[in-house]
């Protein structure tokens, strides 16, 4: 179907694996950075085929079947008890999950 609109192209720049890994909170070794750079670059090349599709007049689909907001009455219902949940904690302190310091000391 012909269209006058220009089709935006996908990115052809190299993926900055170190930066993306930082966003994803995954520590990578130098070897992994190198390997993922190549592999993700290859995948992005395949994915860039989507640039050939004219989607200028197309709505996005987040989910295929009928969906609507689902609400329930604001009434408490039974849930997992605290001990069951905390029993799986890597580290706990009383009724809390214990984590390393988040806010710097004064």
């Amino acid at each position, binding site marked *: 179907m012909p269209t006058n609109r220009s089709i*935006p192209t*996908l*990115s052809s720049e190299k*993926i900055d*694996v170190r930066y*993306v*890994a930082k*966003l*994803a*909170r*995954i*520590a*990578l070794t130098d070897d*992994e950075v190198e390997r*993922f750079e190549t*592999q*993700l670059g*290859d*995948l*992005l090349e*395949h*994915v*860039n*085929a*989507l*640039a050939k*599709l004219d*989607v200028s007049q*197309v*709505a*996005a*689909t*987040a*989910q*295929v*079947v*009928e*969906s609507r907001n*689902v609400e*329930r009455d604001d009434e408490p219902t039974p849930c*997992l008890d605290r001990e*069951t*949940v905390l*029993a*799986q*904690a*890597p*580290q706990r302190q009383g009724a809390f*999950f214990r*984590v*390393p*310091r*988040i806010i710097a000391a004064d």
Partner: protein
Amino acid sequence: MEITERSAAHIARDVNGGTISAREVTDAVLAHIDAVDGDVGSYLTVLHEHARAAAARVDERVKAGEKLPLAGVPLAVKDNMCLTGTRTTAGSKILERWQAPYTATAVERMIEAGAIPVGKANMDEFAMGSSCENSALGVTKNPYDLSRVPGGSSGGSAAAVAAFEAAIGMGSDTGGSIREPGAFCNLVGFKPTYGRVSRYGLIAFASSLDQIGPLTRTVEDAAIAYEAMAGWDRMDSTSIKRYVEPVSRELRTDLRGLKIGIVKEFDTKALGAETHAVYEQAYRDLQALGAELVDVTLPTADYGLATYYLIAPAECSSNLARFDGVRYGLRVEGADVNEMYEKTRAAGFGPEVKRRILIGTYALSSGYYDAYYVRAQKARTLIADDFRKAFASCDLIAAPATSSPAFQFNAKSDPYSMYLMDYYTIPMSLAGLPALSVPCGWVTPPGGDCEMPMGLQLTSPLFTESLLLGAAHAYEQKTKHASKHKPLLGEVPVHRG
């Protein structure tokens, strides 16, 4: 016929009729698992005690007069589904020691229907893979040739059912993870319409695509399992409030009056002469059963893989953010909280999971969101529209399930060649359609010394599971491809009838 080889329908009939107890069935299956699973590796955890206790409960219910559709049926549960008090790992080191504190709705419903979970089945880590090789916790082999993969990601569930270590396997399918291992292991692998089966208690991979379904040795068993697990659940807001037809009582034996679409873009000639011949024969068999074959076109289906490998990683990067070492699972200590996150996730996730999280994070990151993620969502619309248009001229679509039979271990060394395994199954997933794979013949793979099974994929419009399973049943009953070969388990004694 040995107990372990009986269909789920057969076992339930006998247990309900009192000619055998759930306990006897369970003991036979557990003994068989103990004999063969060292070679096959279907299970990450075998639930000896849990299964015997569940069998005792089923026997009590039957004695009290209940008729249970899955009475005493041994069940393999994919290890991304929660079952209270059992280790549930998703095939990942990050959850290696996690005990599920609750039970997934779909599993709960199978148990309520009388099924006995006998083990938690191996899988590609977080369901990302097509061979089970991405499991961080074990190796699963194809029972029809132990040098080959069982498929994935539901490879453990498939291998378990193929090796008679369960009568029904529960799998989850995001882009083909039930259908592909079904095809590789000579089984029926059935993915219902998105939203038909509750995802509550299924460890999320890509939430807009994930769907639970059965792997079975017969279409009838798939129908019975589907009836037990499907239906609205208040714990999953995407589950559909819609009547679930009693499909197992409506299984057809012919295809008269049905139009079946053959997809122009899915030319099987490129798949090699033997595979091409298998699919050509399958289409002729559909015709012989009374179906009218029509040509349909899915012009955007070729973009399925590219679309999927943006949407699924994007959703996974968000879903897997919860594995941060704080509340459950692995933690590796660090100097501060960020270092703790980074080290935990570095040690806990395998390479494929890292790749997908990175791709997804990239596709969702500022500046790339519209170019990648939104564009993929729009392509998804086009793919779903293609199917809608095709179904205007046919009732069902027939296609290959996979481009080849099961391959050997380490045969797909670069990630993209593995992704290609899902070429034929991904478009249906993106469109949310019900789809299944049913055994359709055998081919000898290059370098192989025995025939391996192939699967025919059938798909139909949203919510037409009844039509789909009925058609698959007619095809199965006429062709009986599955019964041509038995699993080869080397020197291991297989309980045969």
